[in-house]
């Protein structure tokens, strides 16, 4: 029996195990939507902006390790996806984005809502397709999922002209893909692994830089075994957080521009760096010329093009991290680094980056720490972009594997709410907290409607500082406090939530923090807390742009505080 392109698409998605699709319809995808009722196993979530569809698919993918799927109509629907696709690309998130295209006879004629979305997305997709023949549709879907989900994951876009969605052909779903230009190296080269092991055995001051690749490869156990066996301290990139217990004695927390003093000092003074599943992003390395000047570098990554891209590497190991670490664990010797670890403990005391200053003000650090306490770390934390993101990265102790969902590479404000929806839909049994900036929240705030319509129980913590906080911090520190256009007039977010039938509370004082969090957790559905935090609180330390990682600074007020009493800086 012949099937339409739309039916073939739906059946192919089902073959790929797709359960949820995020999207918005329009003329060029109507034939697809029209067939959805025939496939009740495909749940469609109607979002309020296609950017939300892409971020939700992204969140879903990060939470489930399966490709997230989003769909949009041609033209504006497709262009609205672009930010979300770019975000998934930068963070190596598996995604299949489906767009409708105008019918084949009018392609190239500037037809109504015709946009060259494959052209636009070449640099932000792992691959993309314009389907020009209905008989190629099934194979295209098969390839798209294969490419998105294997090797270094990433987004793949399929653009399907409307007439193809209506055209009929036999449906045969291929068992295998034939992609001569696509190879995934999954096992590391044994000789390289041996070389790496020897460097590790010989090192006196080794540091691991743990990146998102460990999370993608789900190599938590292998990684912990490695760090413990060779006794090597672990510095995380932003997206590498939660690949290793945050309360572990070998854990240094996040490194980089807003990294802990201890992590940055350790990296800069290391004699060996073992970079695992990370790409030496400039937010992590700061100035690359002065980066870890005495360190040899082992770089383990599945993408050969990452080797030597930003930092010269002594021993590259290309392969899937889980398999490489399994092999490496066999090779490395059990070791102790007593002197090095005691040096590190000294830095930990010298730069107590985790401490929160004692004050009556409502500090964002305190809020995050209380969410951590209340959930006992057993929550999936989705962040916005900016200070709120850094506060979560630094003050939430990640003890649950794979529990941070944050947009690291692209850093699009507005990621938080739709991504949190995707995370909750992907892992409904988990508690999902969405930590939003008051600025970013308003970039995708309309998804509150989706949350209510689809009954998605996310807990929203708006870190309301009345500023585009991260930018204001830069203005304060690097532009002589000229706060040009960073002050925000905000609506009453509790009343906004109420209008969307989401209960909420506003928190102005410290004492109200814990009760509000408890209330949010007790409520079965979505809940919003509007935290009116200290407006000009900064995230420290900070490595000024262009500086080397070791030249981070903390404000003098923290210093004087510390000197004055010795009690005012309190470990919570």
């Amino acid at each position: 029996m012949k099937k339409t392109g739309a039916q073939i698409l739906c059946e192919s998605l089902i073959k790929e195990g797709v359960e949820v699709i995020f999207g918005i319809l329009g003329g060029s995808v109507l034939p697809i939507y029209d067939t959805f009722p025939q496939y009740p196993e495909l749940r469609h979530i109607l979002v309020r902006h296609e950017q939300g569809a892409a971020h939700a698919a992204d969140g879903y993918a990060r939470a489930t390790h399966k490709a997230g799927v989003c769909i949009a109509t041609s033209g504006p629907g497709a262009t609205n996806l672009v930010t979300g696709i770019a975000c998934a690309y930068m963070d190596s998130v598996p995604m299949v984005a489906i767009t409708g295209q105008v019918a084949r006879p009018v392609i190239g004629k500037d037809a109504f809502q015709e946009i060259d979305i494959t052209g636009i997305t070449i640099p932000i997709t792992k691959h993309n397709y314009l389907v020009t023949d209905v008989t190629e549709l099934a194979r295209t879907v098969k390839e798209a999922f294969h490419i998105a989900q294997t090797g270094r994951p990433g987004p793949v876009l399929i653009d399907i002209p409307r007439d193809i969605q209506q055209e009929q052909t036999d449906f045969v779903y291929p068992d295998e893909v034939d992609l001569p230009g696509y190879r995934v190296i999954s096992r590391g080269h044994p000789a390289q692994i041996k070389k790496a092991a020897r460097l590790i055995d010989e090192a006196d001051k080794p540091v691991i830089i743990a990146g998102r690749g460990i999370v993608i490869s789900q190599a938590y156990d292998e990684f912990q075994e490695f760090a413990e066996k060779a006794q090597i301290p672990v510095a995380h990139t932003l997206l590498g957080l939660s690949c290793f217990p945050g309360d572990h004695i070998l854990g240094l927390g996040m490194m980089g521009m807003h990294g802990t003093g201890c992590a940055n000092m350790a990296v800069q003074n290391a004699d060996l760096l073992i970079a695992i599943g990370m790409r030496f992003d400039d937010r992590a390395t700061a100035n690359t010329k002065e980066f870890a000047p005495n360190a040899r570098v082992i770089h383990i990554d599945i993408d050969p093009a990452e080797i030597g891209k930003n930092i010269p590497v002594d021993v590259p190991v290309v392969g899937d991290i889980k398999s490489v670490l399994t092999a490496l664990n066999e090779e490395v010797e059990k070791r102790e680094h007593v002197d090095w670890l005691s040096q590190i403990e000294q830095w930990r005391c010298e730069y107590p980056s985790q401490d929160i200053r004692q004050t009556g003000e409502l500090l964002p650090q305190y809020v995050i720490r209380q969410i951590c306490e209340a959930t006992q770390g057993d929550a999936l934390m989705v962040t916005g972009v900016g200070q709120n993101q850094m506060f979560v990265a630094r003050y939430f102790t990640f003890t649950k594997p794979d529990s941070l969902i944050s947009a690291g590479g692209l850093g699009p404000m507005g990621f938080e709410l739709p991504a949190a929806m995707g995370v909750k839909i992907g892992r409904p049994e988990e508690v999902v907290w969405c930590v939003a900036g008051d600025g970013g929240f308003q970039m995708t705030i309309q998804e509150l409607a989706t949350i209510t319509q689809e009954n998605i129980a996310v807990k929203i913590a708006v870190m309301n500082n009345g500023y585009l906080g991260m930018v204001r911090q830069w203005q304060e520190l690097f532009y002589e406090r000229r706060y040009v256009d960073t002050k925000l007039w905000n609506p009453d977010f509790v009343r906004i939530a109420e209008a969307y039938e989401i209960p909420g509370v506003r928190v102005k004082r410290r004492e109200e923090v814990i009760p509000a969090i408890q209330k949010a957790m007790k409520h079965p559905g979505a809940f919003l807390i509007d935290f009116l935090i200290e407006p000009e609180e900064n995230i420290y330390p900070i490595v000024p742009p262009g500086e080397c990682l070791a030249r981070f600074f903390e404000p003098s007020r923290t210093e004087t505080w510390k000197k004055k009493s010795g009690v005012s800086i309190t470990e919570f």
Partner: protein
Amino acid sequence: MTDTKHTLVALVEDKPGVLNRVASLFRRRSFNIESLAVGGSEHPGLSRMTIVAIGDSAQVEQVRKQLEKLINVVKVADITEGDMVTRELALIKVKATASTRSEIMQIVSIFRANIVDVAPGSVTVEVTGDEDKVNSLLGLLRDFGVKEVSRTGRIALTRGSGS
């Protein structure tokens, strides 16, 4: 490290948009290329691309690896180090008068080039060879007044029976 010319040879799928993907990659990663030539290969469905890229070895290796990541690119090799045959084809339209025509023809024959078109005020010369040969012929013809030049850019294969 010093910038040198590297010759990359790529086998790419003969599909719409592939050239765009390659060009987009060069632009996005600000890789410098001097020339790019593409045409059929011995494999049906695959084209061979010759790219002359300028940079130090690390940069060019990065180009190679990024190219290799493109799904439609089957294989890329930097053949600069090995023994290779390189050729370029150029068409050169030169001003020619009754008095200069024979001199031009003499130069053309020394270079084993051909005259492929003759018009009242000009001749068009076709030359193949490596870039140095094309450049020297072009240098000599400049004295007569070159009206138009079209060069294909380098194509290359490794020497010997291996691939």
